[in-house]
């Protein structure tokens, strides 16, 4: 909702990134979400991460579905193209866009309703295809925009604002993604920007589908006592297991890490994601173990966060399709059309 313009004033001494841009250059229209909504915190983290990575805003593309969360693509990076599509089907639009031009940075923003009910199929299949994008799932356990129905991520026993108790087992995006072969799986909390900003940077730099499931409380419909997605509940039970940050190629990784303490994962672009284990026995490189650990702690009500799994070895969609590195949307026509002679020649086979 860009109907209210946010005044855009760059402070003279504001910090500038490698492109000479300030934080303000990464902002968007004024948010129309409820005051205090977790999604607004996530939006701020997005802007910060892009700023710190010095990504040119117009070389980024924001795609979303429908929901309060999906609206937020309008509230950061006003110089990026945005596409606020239809409910639950952002992944397919992002997939098509990424096919057309693999040279831009793709961010998908969605909600738990958008991704886990109507959009479950597309979410799962974008993971399978390993589309090169950052997928932010702003998870509040409810349908915010339609006023508070349970979503599929609501936990068993969690209470709605009206007092109803959810009985169906939740779909956990993290374990689901792991079981579908996802290559970058993280969980975070909108209330912890120190953790989230570096995760976003790592996700943006990961080559393939990067999922960040952010618990992002809905203050209007799911922030009451009895809700397991409330701010208070999440604050109490979330547990950072693995910290991750992106280190560009230019910055040499200076420290040499003690074994089991921090590990650099080398990226496509020469940079690295540095993993710092806060839980010694958590291994974000072993899918099976990660799954088991998360499942076990989930069962105890603990919310394990951080970069829970990473695999830089798998090909992304572009590579699996042997896509040329030149964007398909800029190919000159004469390289695409085989021409009349070829047409004459091939028709010999039709006689």
């Amino acid at each position, binding site marked *: 909702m860009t109907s209210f313009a946010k005044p855009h004033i760059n402070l003279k001494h504001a910090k500038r990134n490698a492109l000479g841009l300030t934080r303000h250059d990464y902002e968007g229209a004024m948010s129309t979400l409820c005051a205090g909504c977790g999604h607004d915190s996530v939006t701020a983290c997005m802007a910060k991460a892009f700023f710190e990575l010095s990504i040119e805003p117009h070389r980024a593309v924001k795609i979303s579905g429908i929901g309060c969360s999906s609206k937020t693509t309008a509230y950061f990076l006003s110089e990026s193209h945005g596409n606020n599509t239809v409910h639950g089907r952002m992944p397919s639009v992002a997939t*098509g866009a990424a096919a057309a031009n693999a040279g831009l940075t793709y961010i998908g923003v969605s909600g738990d309703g958008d991704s886990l009910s109507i959009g479950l199929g597309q979410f799962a*299949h974008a993971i399978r295809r390993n589309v090169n994008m950052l997928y932010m799932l702003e998870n509040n356990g409810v349908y915010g925009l339609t006023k508070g129905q349970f979503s599929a991520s609501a936990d068993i026993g969690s209470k709605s604002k009206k007092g109803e108790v959810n009985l169906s087992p939740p779909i956990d995006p993290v374990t689901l993604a792991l079981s579908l072969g996802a290559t970058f799986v993280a969980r975070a909390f909108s209330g912890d920007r120190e953790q989230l900003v570096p995760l976003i940077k790592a996700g943006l730099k990961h080559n393939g589908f990067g999922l960040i499931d952010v618990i992002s409380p809905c203050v209007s419909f799911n922030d009451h006592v009895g809700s397991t997605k409330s701010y208070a509940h999440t604050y109490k039970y979330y547990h950072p297991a693995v910290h991750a940050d992106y280190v560009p190629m230019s910055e040499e990784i200076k420290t040499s890490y003690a074994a089991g303490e921090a590990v650099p994962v080398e990226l496509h672009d020469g940079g690295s994601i540095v993993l710092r284990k806060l839980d010694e026995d958590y291994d974000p490189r072993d899918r099976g173990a990660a799954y088991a650990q998360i499942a076990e702690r989930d069962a105890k009500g603990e919310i394990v966060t951080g970069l829970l799994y990473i695999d830089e070895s798998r090909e992304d969609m572009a590579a699996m399709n042997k896509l040329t590195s030149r964007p398909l949307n800029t190919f000159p026509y004469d390289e695409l059309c085989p021409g*009349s002679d070829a047409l004459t020649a091939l028709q010999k086979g039709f006689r």
Partner: protein
Amino acid sequence: MSTPKSTPGINDFVIKLANVNGTGSASANGLLMKSIFRMGVPVVGKNVFPSNIQGLPTWYEIRVTGAGYGARSGNVDMMVAMNANTYARDIAELRPGGVLIYDSTWPRQHVLSRTDVTVLGVPLAQMCNAAFKVARSRVLMKNMAYVGAVAALLSIDVEVIRTLVREMFAKKPKLVDLNMQALALGYDYAMEHFECPLPFKVERLNETKNKIMIDGNTAAGLGCVYAGATVGAWYPITPSTSLMDAFKKWCEKFRIDPKTGEHNYCIIQAEDELAAVGMVVGASWNGARAFTPTSGPGISLMSEFIGFAYYAEIPLVLFDVQRVGPSTGMPTRTQQADVQMCAYASHGDTRHILLFPAHPGECFTMAADAFDLAERYQTPVFVLSDIDIGMNDWMVDELEWDDARQPDRGKVLNAEQIESLEQFHRYKDVDGDGIAYRTLPGTHPKGAYFTRGSGHNADGNYTENEAEYQEVLDRLVRKWRGAADHVPAPIVKKAKGGKARWGILAYGSSDCAVLEACDTLAAEGLHMDYMRIRGFPFSDEVSDFVMAHDHVFVVEQNRDAQLRGLLLLETQIPRAKLLPLLHYSGEPLTSHFVHEHIKDAARQEKSA
């Protein structure tokens, strides 16, 4: 309705082959047809197959037509009855005086049921069992054996068939010998036991010189390559699957860098049609030429996204290879019953551009046109083919491509143009034609805008304001109307000898049947003007044509007279002028059907 009356003759008859699905008959039958084509004699082939992989009945019909007609006639002059399950019905279909060929290995009651046809038994199974060892060969070779027998009876040049066999199995030389042997078995048997050739038979002509035999899906896939399409997303569905198969094949031929092996195309098998169309939305929005082939159920599922593309003004090319509805219907039979849905797909006020190819040649050209129109008008464009066009091999003029042709990418601003703007307004009618300028992601910071399916104003900003909302909605209709003169123009065939009182309107795969019916009617003294519609929205020409006649028959392959409905909704033509002539059995339309109906109507008018 009566059966057709004309008797078969040299280069003028119909062979029908009744087979069991999954027994390899389709390729043998295709080969038979192609051999006639190579003898310079025009042919029409229709493959009627079941929704099944193995076991259910299937038919192949080959019309030999020296006169070069393109439709089924409605006759059956020779029946090759290979399916015991459909004997009764197959034999009944043969015209009096026709020829029945059957496998005389076993005694068959049914073949005796008619005394007015010539029954020729060939012990196909027996001969093949004797000649071949492997079980699968025994089944497959029966097909080549009857091809041999038919060749003898119709004096088809066996050398032509042999060449075709060699080409077909170029990569599997072992199979060449087997097939040659089977061919000879049938040929020799027929020569020995029957008086060959029959009175109706094939004689060399020179009428197929600049022609090819191609199916519409292959041609459409090729058209997408020539149009410069780079992204194709789809979900498998009969009968559109082979369109994407073709696109893939041509891309592999033309679009892989021989050095690096890199592809400059991307084909994505989506998880369903909701995703397939979403991928096309994403790719088109991002500036690639993108498309999806599907059929009726797919369009139903795509409806919501189609409305999004309409309202957010994103180019979209959809091929709907129509099959028989409603619902799953008869997925391997033909119909034109998605016309109305495609014209207005999605909720709210929406209207789309439709193209109606009549044969594979137009599948090729209209595929290219569709991308130009979609990008020019920034809107969904449907190419409405059907299973008859899409999956049957048609004889058409050799395809041509004008190397000077450049794609019309529509109003897309490049970086320089954006740079020179004060401000970019995504949905403003700058030129007065209802078409606004668009920008592509990544081009220029000033070109960025926010695409949305929710209410927006001329600047692209969110709005819930009545006037701003309406401004955009009103422009959309203006834009759409503007396309009327840019879709492929209708083609008119005037009656010989001046002004006809009556006219015919048709579109798509009904064309050939109507053309032939016009000739037959003319021969009987009933002269009709004929207009073939090729696009929607309709240009004024369409109304003018109808208004110039007392009555116009609107020939369609659906129950509800859907195109006539569009004429009622979108033109000022009085209802009474438009007489529906509807065929919706699922079989390709015959010229006989059209002819009879119009003749009846004429008779009734006279007697009234």
